[in-house]
């Protein structure tokens, strides 16, 4: 954990999160996020090899619902909230470079 969050690291994280940062913001966030991570270094440094993680505060399992059809939303109500609509579908700009 000794390595500090770098400016490039912040830029990478911003790209993953689909945020764009100005050069000045990049500096500020590098500083601020670094400070929080330094603060969290106490946790990072603990030897917890034998401790199981807790992802959830309550122990529940097998919460299931019956396979019974329920009401759907009114399409007009849904599409009225959309930024752009065409042919009863949500319209988005060109999708580049992400063929799956």
């Amino acid at each position, binding site marked *: 954990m000794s390595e500090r969050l770098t400016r490039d690291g912040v830029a*990478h994280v911003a*790209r*993953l999160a*689909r945020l764009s940062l100005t050069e000045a913001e990049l500096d500020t966030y590098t500083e601020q996020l670094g400070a929080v991570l330094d603060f969290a270094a106490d946790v990072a440094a603990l030897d917890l090899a034998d401790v199981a993680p807790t*992802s*959830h505060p309550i122990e*529940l*399992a*097998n*919460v*299931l*619902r*019956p*396979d*019974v*059809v*329920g*009401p*759907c*939303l009114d*399409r007009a109500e*849904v*599409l009225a909230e959309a930024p752009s609509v*065409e*042919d*009863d*579908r*949500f*319209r*988005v*700009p*060109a*999708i*580049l*470079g*992400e*063929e*799956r």
Partner: protein
Amino acid sequence: MTAVNLTHEPIEGEHFHVTSATTGDVWEIVVGLEVHCELATATKLFCSCPNHFGSEPNTNVCPVCLGLPGSLPVLNHQVVELAMRLGRALRCSVEPSVFARKNYFYPDMPKDYQVSQFDRPINVDGWLDLPDGTRVGVERAHIEEDTGKNTHAGGSGRIHGAQYSLVDYNRAGVPLVEIVGRPHIRHPDQAKAYVDELRAILLATGASDAKMEEGSLRVDANVSVRRVGDTALGTRCEVKNLNSLRSLGRAIEYEARRQVDLLETGERVKQETRHWDEGAGRTRPGRSKEEAEDYRYFQEPDLVPLVPGPEWIAAVDAAMPELPAARRARLAETAGVTPAEAAIAVSRDLDGLAAAAIGAGGDPGRVLTHVEHDLAVDGAGNLDPIHLAALVGLELDGKLTATQAKAVLAEMVATGEHPEAIAQASGFEAMDTSTLEGVLDEIVTGCPDEWVGYCEGDDKRRAKLQGFFVGKVMKATKGRADGKVVTALLEQRRVAAV
């Protein structure tokens, strides 16, 4: 693609080999398939919207499957049931599982993460037996949600040519099981057989309607090559956009050639996703992204672990229908054939009829022939296996020709009557030999040149003229003659003549 000569070498049995024309090296294909199938539930994975193909766009949607702020998922019981059925059919062990979020942005994915099972899937470590006897390992079969559908508009139709896209979320949140096969496949035909077998299992268990053309069954192929004898796996490419079994076979073959070609010329195979272009008959690289994917998987906090108890698993096992492999084995035993030879009857769902007809004394070979080729699947269920056995008996006794038997069989399906009654009513009775001799006398007399040719010509000419005479007899008898008998009579005459 010039330096490589692709051959299928039957000597090597099941394996599909690529032999280099330049070096003479022999390469083998290594394939692992990832199959996504939509489960046949009434509702979606995490909400009560209908799981229905072909509805008006954006009508099967609610806050949950639209990923609206504040909405929460609740797991569909039937999804777990069907996933377990499939898992057990694939001989997997059912394990306690958790859902995770796979984070990446894509407009057809409403929450911009996919809920899937990552490090703890429900079904692990099973296998699938192909009709040819190959056992293909199944690493896992986990539950995940489907995406919506993008329609690309304003451009060429390919994604990168489109000016914009339109999104329909009806399919978003439809339950999928992803079946990850181990790289045990060595031949394009095996890959096709694997998908065929998997489809048969999906149908048998009721887990999915498994329609490749509607996209409820989707196959991606991980393809690599290595020199025969090598044990390490080569670098693989994941081939997507395989919309039919034919595409699957062609794509694997193409990809293998491409990779061997690269390696033979000293280049390296780049690990990447490639898309099959059916029209061009080739794979193309997906557009490479600026940086490697980082999905930031973590446990989905809005869902709780799934821990099916032993009673539930036992109930799934108890209700398991007989699976295709077992049915093949059973029919093979009854009919005295190999399981591979029983495959068609099983795939046509007529193995029960065949076994019963054989049990009623029908000749296995003839019964299987009828079941494999002559019976339409629809309506065959009404057929009395005892009648089928009787029909086969009439054929073997020479009372019906093959052509006549086919016609009688069609009548049996339509009317449910006994084959003997149908044959009689239709005037179908194989001609006795003396009547045939008379017919043959007339024809031979009427075609002296051909007869001489038949008696004295070389093998090729004789074979051709044999067909000529059999055809004449068939025409004269309106198909009531048995072709085999006619051939035998012709041969007797020729031997007597020379």
